[in-house]
């Protein structure tokens, strides 16, 4: 809907309608036009600026097909890598003289339920002490086939980090020496950091009024 007064909305899918986290059709404005769209999927093109071009130059000749897209945002560069090539890319990032990302700061998982076919993301932050640089490598896998190759062989520090990501998101890191739960009890069911896993909690009475559990409270997001 574009008029002279209103700028055209970006063609992104609708994240939600209305305000205050109402779950039914309710729109507190009464006009049913409060629409919040999903943030667009970013992709940057050259030049990336800063040292990012040097890193991309050293990485891309051998791995042009492995890097799906590159995002430069807020002074940080992210390489989205195909999961099949992850181990090779990581090894190259660690060993190549122009890259030398010796230190990995571990694995972090993120669950994007609306990204069909790439719901689960594993995010690796790498640091090069030689060149004093930082980059981010991101890998995704579908929820139906939650497998990502393990990088413990390249960065032994990923041992616990991959166990943690498996524990919280259910991403199976193929080739990990002992992929077991690390924070939750061994017999726990479900993976708590996923978006479809409820927070839980009970309502609390405070001065005669009932305060609902955190995930039942009115949300403004």
């Amino acid at each position, binding site marked *: 809907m574009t008029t002279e007064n209103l700028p055209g909305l970006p063609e992104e899918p609708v994240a939600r309608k209305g305000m205050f986290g109402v779950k039914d059709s309710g729109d507190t404005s009464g006009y049913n036009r409060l629409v919040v769209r999903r943030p667009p999927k970013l992709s940057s093109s050259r030049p990336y600026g800063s040292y990012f071009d040097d890193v991309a130059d050293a990485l891309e000749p051998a791995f042009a097909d492995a890097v799906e897209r590159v995002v430069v945002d807020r002074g940080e560069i992210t390489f989205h890598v195909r999961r099949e090539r992850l181990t090779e890319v990581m090894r190259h990032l660690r060993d190549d003289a122009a890259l030398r990302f*010796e230190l990995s700061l571990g694995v972090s998982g*993120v669950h994007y339920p609306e990204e069909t076919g790439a719901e689960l993301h594993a995010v690796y932050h790498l640091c090069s002490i030689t060149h004093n640089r930082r980059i981010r490598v991101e890998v995704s896998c579908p929820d139906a086939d939650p497998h990502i190759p393990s990088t413990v062989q390249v960065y032994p520090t990923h041992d616990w980090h991959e166990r943690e990501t498996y524990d919280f998101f259910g991403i199976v890191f193929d080739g990990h020496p002992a992929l077991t739960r690390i*924070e939750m009890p061994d017999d726990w069911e479900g993976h708590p950091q996923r978006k479809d896993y409820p927070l839980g909690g009970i309502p609390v009475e405070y001065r005669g009024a009932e305060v609902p559990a955190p995930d039942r409270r009115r949300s403004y997001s």
Partner: protein
Amino acid sequence: MSTTETATETQGRIYDVAGQDWDELVKTVSESADERLVVNMGPQHPSTHGVLRLVLTLDGETVTEARTVIGYLHTGIEKNMEFRTWTQGVTFVTRMDYLAPIFNETAYCMGVEKLLGITDRIPDRAQAIRVLTMELTRISSHLVAIATFGMELGATTPMLFGFREREMVLDLMEYITGLRMNMAYVRPGGVSVDLPAGAVDKIGEFLKIMPGRIKEMRKLLDANPVYTRRTKDVAYLDLTGCMALGITGPMLRAAGLPWDLRKSQPYCGYETYEFDVPTQNTCDVYGRYLVRMAEMEESLKIIEQALDRLSGPLKGGPVMIEDKKIGWPSQLALGPDGLGNSPDHIAHIMGSSMEALIHHFKLVTEGFRVPAGQTYASVESPRGELGAHVVSDGGTRPYRVHFRDPSFTNLQAVPATCEGGMVADVISAVASIDPVMGGVDR
């Protein structure tokens, strides 16, 4: 109670140690033909720094296998934050590494500020207060590390000294923030309240007393033959091992690499302070102790410089970003109960301006929106690189916050430093890693 002698195929013979005659136990164990003994240390053991559990396989007194079991203090902080506003997140992260709360807060706030794109607009006074409180916290955290370490080796004097000195820092923190620990003082955009009147003098007094106290501790431990024999050449981990295992902080600097984020990738204006990065190249427990001691001395230098700026050029400046959409609407002052309040602001919103009341209400209950994206912000905590991976979907709540806690990563060094050594050295090794289980399990 006597030893239960249940022999199963998988577990072997089980000796139950629960308040029986120790002579009897030793006799039963020595009569056994088994050479391999699996000892379960923790999770409730005074030498494991909280609820860390170590499963040690012993051959005589030699550790052949050391396994670490964690998760006993997992409280779901990262999950909980996804249901609170960005500002409320501070009260959660401060409880992660509870010996260094200011560092958690700063890393998180730096992440949020990066996402908001306001990193350059944080007032200098707020940055200097952050540096000041971080360095105070570094001293208190290192003091606990050295104090508990002494106690675990059987030396109670370092413990008493360490906790006595730490108390001075905690008193200062209480005076500045209102709370001794878990203060939620650093907020996205600045800090919650300005330094109260008299804080500069109090910190100045502390700066006069502390160097002598550090010297006292050094006199007690640096050349102490019992101490050095328990620490020198124990739990060796060289630079290659540190890099592979992702170890940062004093452990890495004791392996000879002067890698300190305050120098290499400065934040909060650290590039404008003069200090050195102490290193050792012994790769052992004693080296880590020396690094920690020297770091406390360096921290005192930084505190002095920060104090000079706060009482000089930065005096009276704002401590919160001048952006009404992000910064808290009022300048709070600490009350006698430690809670901040502002009578002027209350009079304004309740008496004269409806719009100010609406604005206050919206900002406090709804919070501000953070543009979608992800970022990674890291600080040099007393234990190493503390990183916050902060993801936003454009809403008023964090979409995902992950903390790369140095305790979690450094604890992976237990097998590498303990296996092949004596069982008594496991205590030194774990203590020299200085893990804080609140940070490990989150």
